[in-house]
C-alpha cells in the first residue's frame, strides 16, 4: 500500500526519450502528440518541474508547436495533421505552458467557425458534434478574450439539451450521462454564465460514482478510473460541493494508482501513461495539493492557476 506521492518528475521529463516502451503505442499515437505535450507539461507544472525543461528542448517544442498550426488557423494533432477543435484547444493551452505565442487570431477564428446554428460546435469541417467541442470553444475563446466571436447563449442552450433526468450530462442530446462529459458541460455552462440547472442533483449523481476502493467510475456499474477523479472532482469544485464525495478515499485511490518508478495508471497495478499521470496529479492538486506540494490546477481551464492569474480578462472565471 502506498501512502505518499511518488516522484514523477523524471518519468515526465524523459517521456520523449523513452523509446524503450513495452508496446507499439508511442508510434501509433503520433496524432496525439499535441495532447501528449499538454498532458506532459501540465503535469510537470503540477509537480513544480516545468522550468526544468532544458532551454534548447523548450525551443524545439515551441518550434514544433507552431508547426502544428495550419493555414486555416486550427491545429492538428501533430505537424501536417488536419485541424481539429480539440487540438486547437490543446495548442492554445500548450502555448501558455511554453510561455510563447501562436497565431491566436487565426486560431480563434477557426474555433468560432465551428459553431453551428443550434449553438453546438463541430470538431472540424466534417461535422461531428459533441459537448467536448463546446468546452474547447468556450475555454479557448475565454482564454484568448474573444468570447464575442460566438453566440454564448446558444452554446449554453445546446449543452442544456444534453442534461438528463438523472441530473448529469452526456456528449450529445439523448446521450447517456457520463463522468467525463460532466467536466465538459459544467465547464461550458460555467463559462457561459448559465449555471441554471439543478446543482444538487448533479452532486448527488457524482456522489454515487464513488466506488468501494475510493475511486470514481464514469457511469453506474462501471469500473473506477483515475481520470474520473479529475473530470468530476473539478466539477464539484466549480459547483462548490467538494465534500459530497469522500475526499480522503479518493485521494487514497489516486495514490494507489501510482507506479513506484513514476507515472500514474488508470487503476492500481496497471500500466502508467502520461494521460492518467496528468489527471491523477491535477485531481490531487485540488483535493489536497498542499500536502503534496502540488501547484493547483484550475478546475475550469485545467491549467496552472499561476499562469491564469497573469491574464486579467480570465480572472472573473477563476473559482
Amino acid at each position, binding site marked *: 500500500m502506498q501512502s505518499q506521492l511518488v516522484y514523477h518528475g523524471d518519468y515526465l521529463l524523459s517521456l520523449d526519450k523513452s523509446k524503450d516502451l513495452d508496446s507499439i503505442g*508511442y508510434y501509433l499515437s503520433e496524432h496525439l502528440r499535441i495532447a501528449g505535450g499538454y498532458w506532459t507539461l501540465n503535469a510537470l507544472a503540477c509537480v513544480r518541474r516545468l522550468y526544468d525543461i532544458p532551454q534548447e528542448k523548450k525551443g524545439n517544442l515551441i518550434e514544433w508547436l507552431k508547426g502544428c498550426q495550419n493555414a486555416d488557423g486550427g491545429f492538428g494533432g501533430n505537424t501536417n495533421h488536419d485541424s481539429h477543435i480539440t487540438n486547437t484547444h490543446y495548442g492554445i493551452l500548450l502555448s501558455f505552458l511554453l510561455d510563447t505565442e501562436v497565431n491566436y487570431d487565426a486560431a480563434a477564428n477557426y474555433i468560432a467557425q465551428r459553431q453551428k446554428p443550434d449553438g453546438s460546435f463541430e470538431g472540424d469541417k466534417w461535422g461531428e458534434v459533441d459537448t467536448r467541442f463546446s468546452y474547447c470553444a468556450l475555454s479557448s475563446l475565454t482564454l484568448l478574450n474573444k468570447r464575442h466571436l460566438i453566440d454564448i447563449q446558444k452554446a449554453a442552450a445546446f449543452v442544456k439539451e444534453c442534461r438528463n433526468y438523472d441530473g448529469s450530462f452526456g456528449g450529445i442530446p*439523448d446521450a447517456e450521462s457520463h463522468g467525463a462529459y460532466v467536466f465538459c458541460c459544467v465547464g461550458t455552462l460555467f463559462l457561459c454564465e448559465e449555471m441554471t440547472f439543478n446543482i444538487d442533483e448533479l452532486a448527488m449523481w457524482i456522489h454515487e460514482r464513488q466506488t468501494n476502493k475510493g475511486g470514481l467510475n464514469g457511469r*453506474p*456499474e462501471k469500473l473506477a478510473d483515475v481520470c474520473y477523479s479529475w473530470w468530476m472532482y473539478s466539477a464539484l469544485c466549480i459547483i462548490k*460541493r467538494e465534500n459530497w464525495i469522500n475526499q480522503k478515499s479518493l485521494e487514497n485511490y489516486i495514490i494507489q494508482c501510482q507506479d513506484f518508478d513514476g507515472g500514474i495508471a488508470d487503476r492500481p497495478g496497471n500500466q502508467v501513461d502520461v494521460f492518467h499521470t496528468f489527471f491523477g496529479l491535477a485531481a490531487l492538486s485540488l483535493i489536497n495539493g498542499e500536502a503534496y506540494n502540488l501547484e493547483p490546477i484550475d478546475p475550469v481551464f485545467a491549467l496552472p492557476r499561476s499562469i491564469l492569474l497573469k491574464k486579467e480578462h480570465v480572472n472573473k472565471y477563476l473559482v
Partner: protein
Amino acid sequence: MMHGTVKRKEELTPVEKQARDQKAAKVLEMTDYFFKVRKGEVAAPDDPLAFTELMAQLCTEIATIYNYRREILEKQIAQLKENDAASLSKLIQKEFQLITILLKKHPKSYTLWTHRQWTVLQSIEIDKVLKEKELPLIQSVQTEYLLCVKMLQMDERNFHVWNYRNWLNSVTNFANDEDKFLKQKIEQNFSNFSAYHFRSKYLLKIHNNNDSLKARVITEGNLGIIPIPKNILEEELELISQAIYIQPKEHGVWLYQRWLIGVIQPFGIRNIIITNDKVEIYFNKKAQKISNHLVFSCPIELLNEEQFGDKIIYKKPEQDHFLVSLNNRILQQIDDPYIDQDTSSRFVLNQQITITENKVYGVANDLNDVYEFVIQTTKQKIEFLKEVIKEEANNHFAYIQILYLYRYLVSTLSLTKKIDDLKSIIDEAFDYSQKLVKFNQSQVSLYLNNQWKESYEEALQQKGGWL
C-alpha cells in the same frame, strides 16, 4: 492512453523488441509517405483508396487518414453517380465493411463512428439521386442495426453504439421495434443502465409529442395529457420494481424508477402573495422563462424573474379583480405543449387563479382525475419503498429514493388544496431523513435531512404557503 492494461513486469525479449522495431519503422515510413502525399509533395499513389485503406489498418486512429479518404470518396461518388449505380453501391458497401473490420479492434473510436455516420449520410443522398431503385443503399443502412446488435452483445454499455443506433432512428424510417429491443436488453441484464436510459428517451419521444398527446386526449380524456400513458407507466413501474428487488444495490435501477414517477409530476403555481404593490407568484419547481407561459386578464408589469427560479414578481395592477392562468396547451389546442424547464418533466396542468381585492381564490380543477392518478401512483410507490426499506434497512438508495418520491408528492399536493395530507406526509418524510442520517452521514444525507427539516418546520408554523 491506456485503459485497463495490466503493467508488464518483464522487459521485452530480443525477439519482441525486433518485431516492435520493425513495426515502428513501417509505421514511421508509411505515415511519412502519407503526409507527403497529403501535402502534394510526392505523387499520390495510383489507387489512393487502397492506400488509405492500408493506412487505416496500420494507424487506425489517425483522423487525417479518413479526412483524405472522404475527399477521394466524394470525388468517386460524384463520378459514379452519373452512370454507374452498381459500382457506386459496391463502393459504399465496401466502405461499411472496412469500418466494421476496424471497429472490431477499436470499438470506441470517435473517428471510426464519425466516418460510419458520414457513409450512411452518403447512402441516403445517393439514393435520392439514383434512378435505379433496384440497388437502394438504404437497405445497407438497415443492416447497420445488426451491427449495433452484435456490438452491444460484445459490450452492452458502449455508448458509441447506443448513440449511433439512436442517430440511425432519427435519420431513417425503418420500422424498427425499438420497444422490443430495449425491453430485451433490460431483461437480459437488469443492470444495463444504458438500456433504461434510452428507454426513457424512447417513451417520451413516442408518447409525449403533440400528435400523440392530441390523439390520447380523444381516447383517454384528461388522462391523455400525462407524459406517459397510464397503462405503459404501470407496466414500466412493475418491471422496475422487479429490478429493484433483484439489484437493490445498484444506482441505475433507482434512477429509472425515479424518472417514471418524476416525469408525471405536474409543474404549476403553488401560491400567490399580494402585497401593497406587488404580486408574487410561486411555483412548485424551478424553471426558466416561466413568464412566457403565464396569461393575465389585464396588463401587468414584470418586475423580477430569476434565470432559473421558482418565483416571479410583478407589479400589482390597477384592477381589483383579475385572473392569472397557466394552461396545458394540448388541452387548449395550442401547438407547443412544452414549458421550458428542467428536463425531468415538461408537464403542465390548467390552473386559473382569480384575485379579487387582494384575495386569492384557487382554481377549480376540472383536472381532478389527473391529480388523483398522479398522487395515487406516487403514494403506491412510496408504500412499495417502505417495504423495501424493511428488507434493506441500511441501503441508502432506498432512503434517498423514498425521500425523492415524498418530495414529488409534496410538490404536486401543493398544487391542490389538500393541506392536512401535506402535513402528515412531510412528517413521514422528515422521519425517514432522520433514519438515513443515523446510518449514513454523507453530505447527501445531511443535505436531504436539512431540506426535510426545513419543510417540517415550515409546515408546523403553517408557513408552507400553499393555495
